[in-house]
C-alpha cells in the first residue's frame, strides 16, 4: 500500500499533521502506539504560559493562591496604559499572547515556534479550533492566557480551554462548591478548597460503584442520565448559596457538554471541570475528535502498532515495517512525518550515557554528559537541560545534524521531540504540538520539496 504521507506518532502533533495533510487532499497513514501525552496531560491547550518579561498582561482578578501570586510576581504588573488589551482580537490568538509570542520568537530563534512563525501558529490554532464547533468548543480570552484552578488548589495559566472549564476561570473566594468522590483517589475536594477558600464535599458513589473507581469509569458513568441525576441531586442538597460547582475533569467522554448541562439543570448552578492527575479525560476527547474526523475523511489509522524498522536509503526513508506479532507489514510513502514525542512517547530513549532517537536513528542534540541532564534540585529556577534535548531541523522542520547538514530529505519532524524548548516550564506543550504538526504537513507538501 502506498501513501502520500506516513505519520509516525499519534499524539497531538501527529494528529494535527494528519488533519492538515488530509485537508490538502493527501492519502495519509497515521501509525501510533497510543495517543501520546495527549491522554495524560492535555486538559487544555497551552501556548505560552510564561510570557516574556516585556509582555504586559492584565490579570482577571486577584487569586487566592500563593503559587499563582509568585507566578504573577515574575512578570511585570500590568500598567494602566496597557496598549494591547484595548485592541480587538483577530484570529485565535488574543492580542496579549500574540505580542508575547512575537517577543518570544525574537528572543528564542532556535525555539520551534520561531521556525513556525507567528502567522502559521495562528493558522494552526485556527485549524485546531475549527475541529471543535459548539457546543464542546475551545475558548480563549482577549488577554491571551486564562487562569484555571487545578487539583492541587493552584491556578495555572493556559490559552484555550474547553467550554466545560470556563466557569472555573472567574472563581471568587467562597462562591464555589468543589465536589470530590469517595473511592476516586485522584482528586480531593478538601485539598483544593483549603487553598481556594471555597467549600468542599466528598460524595459517596451509589452502589455498585462505591469502591475504588477510575477517572475513565467515572467519566463513562457520568454519561448515564440516571447516574448523573443521583449525583446532581446529592450536590444540590449540599449547595448553600454557591453559584458554581467544580468537579474533577471527568464529565463524560463522548458528550461532555450534555453532561455539564444535565448537571446544571439539576443543581441550578454553573458547573466546571478541574484538571487532575493523568489520565486526562479532556485529552482523550481531543484524541477521539481527531480520530473521528480523520477516519471520516479517509485517513488510515493504525492504532496500537509500533514501527519495528525503517528502511533508509540515499538520505531518504523508503518505508516502514510494522510488527503486530506474528504479522509483519511494510508500508510505503513519498513523505514521512516523525511525531513520536519525547521519553514518555518513546521518540527519545536514554541509556546510561546518551539519548537516542528511537526509530530513524536521527542525531539528538543533548548535553555532553549525563551528570548535566538534570539540575541538582527538582524545583529550580533553571529548567532541567535534558528537556532541551531533541532533534535539530532546518527551517522547514527537516532533520539536520550538528553541522546543519540535512540527514533525511523526505522526513519532517513535529511535536515535542524537537530540540530547544522547555514545554513543561514554558507551558507550551500543546501549542508546540499543534503548530509544528501543522507546519510539518504544510512543508512536506510545499513546492520547494
Amino acid at each position, binding site marked *: 500500500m502506498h501513501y502520500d504521507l506516513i505519520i509516525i506518532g499519534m499524539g497531538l502533533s501527529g494528529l494535527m499533521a494528519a488533519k492538515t495533510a488530509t485537508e490538502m487532499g493527501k492519502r495519509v497513514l497515521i501509525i501510533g502506539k497510543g495517543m501520546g501525552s495527549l491522554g495524560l*496531560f492535555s486538559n487544555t491547550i497551552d501556548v505560552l504560559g510564561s510570557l516574556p518579561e516585556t509582555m504586559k498582561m492584565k490579570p482577571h482578578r486577584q487569586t487566592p493562591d500563593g503559587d499563582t501570586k*509568585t507566578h504573577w510576581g515574575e512578570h511585570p504588573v500590568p500598567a494602566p496604559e496597557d496598549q494591547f488589551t484595548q485592541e480587538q482580537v483577530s484570529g485565535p490568538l488574543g492580542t496579549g499572547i500574540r505580542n508575547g509570542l512575537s517577543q518570544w520568537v525574537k528572543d528564542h530563534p532556535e525555539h520551534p515556534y520561531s521556525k513556525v512563525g507567528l502567522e502559521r501558529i495562528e493558522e494552526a490554532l485556527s485549524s485546531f479550533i475549527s475541529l471543535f464547533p459548539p457546543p464542546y468548543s475551545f475558548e480563549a480570552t482577549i488577554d491571551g492566557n486564562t487562569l484555571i484552578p487545578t487539583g*492541587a488548589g493552584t491556578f*495555572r495559566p493556559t490559552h484555550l480551554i474547553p467550554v466545560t472549564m470556563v466557569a472555573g476561570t472567574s472563581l471568587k473566594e467562597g462562591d464555589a462548591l468543589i465536589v470530590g468522590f469517595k473511592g476516586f483517589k485522584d482528586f*480531593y475536594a478538601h485539598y483544593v478548597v483549603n487553598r481556594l477558600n471555597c467549600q468542599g464535599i466528598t460524595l459517596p458513589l451509589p452502589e455498585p460503584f462505591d469502591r475504588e473507581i477510575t477517572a475513565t469509569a467515572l467519566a463513562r458513568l457520568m454519561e448515564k442520565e440516571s447516574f448523573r441525576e443521583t449525583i446532581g441531586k446529592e450536590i444540590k442538597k449540599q449547595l448553600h448559596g454557591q453559584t458554581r460547582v467544580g468537579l474533577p475533569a471527568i464529565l463524560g467522554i463522548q458528550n461532555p457538554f450534555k453532561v455539564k448541562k444535565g448537571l446544571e439543570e439539576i443543581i441550578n448552578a454553573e458547573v466546571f471541570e478541574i484538571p487532575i*492527575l493523568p489520565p486526562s479525560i479532556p485529552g482523550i476527547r481531543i484524541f477521539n475528535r481527531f480520530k473521528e474526523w480523520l477516519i471520516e475523511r479517509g485517513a488510515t489509522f493504525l492504532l496500537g502498532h509500533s514501527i519495528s524498522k525503517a528502511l533508509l536509503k540515499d538520505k531518504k526513508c523508503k518505508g516502514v515495517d510494522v510488527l503486530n506479532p506474528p504479522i509483519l507489514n511494510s508500508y510505503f510513502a513519498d513523505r514521512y512525518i516523525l511525531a513520536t514525542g519525547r521519553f*514518555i512517547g518513546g521518540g527519545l*530513549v536514554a541509556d*546510561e550515557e546518551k539519548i537516542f532517537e528511537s526509530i530513524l536513528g536521527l542525531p539528538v542534540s543533548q548535553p555532553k554528559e549525563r551528570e548535566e541532564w538534570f539540575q541538582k534540585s527538582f*524545583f529550580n529556577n533553571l529548567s532541567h537541560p535534558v528537556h532541551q534535548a531533541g532533534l535539530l531541523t532546518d527551517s522547514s522542520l527537516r532533520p539536520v545534524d550538528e553541522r546543519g547538514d540535512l540527514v533525511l530529505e523526505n522526513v519532517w519532524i513535529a511535536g515535542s521531540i524537537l530540540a530547544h524548548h522547555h514545554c513543561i516550564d514554558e507551558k507550551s506543550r500543546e501549542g508546540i504540538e499543534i503548530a509544528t504538526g501543522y507546519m510539518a504537513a504544510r512543508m512536506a507538501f510545499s513546492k520547494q520539496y
Partner: protein
Amino acid sequence: MKLQTEVLIIGGGATGVGISRDLSLRGIPSILIEKGDFASGASGRNHGLFHSGGRYAVSDPGAAQECMAENRILRRIAPHCIEETEGLFISLPEDGLDFRDQFLRGCEEAEIPATLCSRDEALALEPELNPAILSAVKVPDGAIDPFTLILENLRDAENHGAKFLLHTETTSLILNGDRVRGITAKDLIHGEAYSIDASYLINATGAWANQFLKLAGLHIDMALSKGTMLITNQRLNQRVINRCRRPSDGDIIVPNDTVSILGTTSLRSEDVENFEVTSTEVSLLIKETSKMIPAIKEARLIRAYAGIRPLFQSGEKGNDRAISRGFALIDHEKREGLKNLITITGGKLVTYRLMAEKTSDLICQKMGGNISCLTHMRPLPGADHPSRLIDRLRKISQSISADRGEILCDCEMIGREEVQDFLKESKLKDLRDLLHRTRLAKGTCQGGFCIYRLLGVLHDLKMGEVDSNTVLKGFLEERWKGIRPILWGTSIKEEELIESIYKGIFNLTPTHPSPLEGEGEGGGAG
C-alpha cells in the same frame, strides 16, 4: 519543660534504641532523644545485610567473630526482622582462588559455617549469576529490616518504662566540674525547649559523634565514609551475593523483600548531613555488580541512596576499608576526666545489641552495681509473629477482597484504610515519619502519585492543616535526591511524567526552600 532521668541517650539509631532496651530490662530508667526520626542515620541507610561476618573473615577476624556470634543471637531474639537467605561469596575468573582459600580458613577461625559450592551448584541456587564464576562459598548471611528491628527494640523498651523524644535536638551541654549535669534541647517541630538532667549520658549519635562532643569541647578521631547503594525494582537474587575478594566497591547484592540492593562505594565525606550520590558512583556500582549478576545491566533502578559509616580510627590512616568495622566504646572519664559521659560509635548494624550490652555494662560499673544483661536471652516482642512479607501479602489480599477503601500507593499496594489506621493510632509529628513507617512511596514510582493522594487523604481527615503544596514540594525535592542519579531508561519516562504532573498540570513553581529540604529521608533499605 524540665525532665530528669538516670541515663540520657542521645541518638535514635539501632545502637541508641538498643541501649534503651538493654537498660530498661535491667531496670535502669532512661530517656532517648533523637533529632530526626528513628534510623535517620546509618541504621536506616545501609544495604540491610544481616552479616555472617564473612565479609571480614580475612581482613578483620575480630569483627568477623563478633558478627557471627551476634548473628546467632539475633536469629533467636529477632527472627521476624530477618530473612534467612544465606549468602554466597562468588569467585570470578579475574579474582582467582587464592583469596577464596584464605576466606575458607578465615571462616573456620571465626567459626562462620562455610560450605564450598561448585560452579554448577551455585548456578542451580542462583540462576542469574554470571555463568563464568569459578566457585562459591555458602555462609549464613541474610537480609535484615533495620527499621522493624529498631521499632521492636523501642516497643520493648517502652514496655519497660523507657522514654523517647523524637525530632528533638541537643542545643547545649551543661557542665558541672568533672560531670555533665544534663543538656538543653529543642523540639524541632513544635519549638518546645527542654532541659534534661541526667546522672549519665551516652553519646550514641554515630556519624554525628563529634558534633555532640564539640558541645563539651571534646573530639575523637573518626573517619566518615560515604557508602552509596542502588535499588532495583525487582528481586534478582534469593541469596546475598558477595564477591570473594578483599572488600571493595560494588561487591555485594542484597535481596530485600521485593527488590535487590546493590552496594557499595566507600568515599571520604566531611559532611554528615549533605552528601549526594554522583553519577560516577552509580556507573561504578552497575559496572561492578553486573559482573556478578549480568541482568543488572538491564534492570530498572528505582533509587540511589547513601549513608555515612562512622568509622573509629585507632591510630591507623589510609584506606577506609582497612579500618576495623568493630565498635569503639569510649569512657570519657578515662580519656578526659568527664565522669559520666560515654561515647559508643563504629560497629555494624548486626552488632548493635552487643554494643548496647557493653555500653550498659559500663554504665552499671559506673553506678557501682552489677546487673546482668538480658537482651540476648529475651526475644523481641513480635518474635513469634510471621515474617513481614507474608504479613504484608495477607494484608494486601484483605484490602482487595473487602471494602477497605481505595489503594493509594499502586506500586506497594498500600490501601487508604491502612494509612488512616496508622494516622489514628500513632502520635506522629511529621509526615516523613508516616512515610518512614509504611511502604508508601517505596515502590517503582517512589511516591510520584501516592504523595498527592496521601495529602488528599490528610485533608479528608482534617489533618492537612499545613500548606500541603509546601509539603508536596518538599517531598518531591527529597525524592529527587534519590532518583536524579539514576534517570535513564524507563526511569526517565517516569520523571517526565511526574514533572509534567506537578509543574505542568498543577503548576507548582520553585519558591522559597521548603521546611523539608536538607534533611535525610532515611529508611534506605525499605
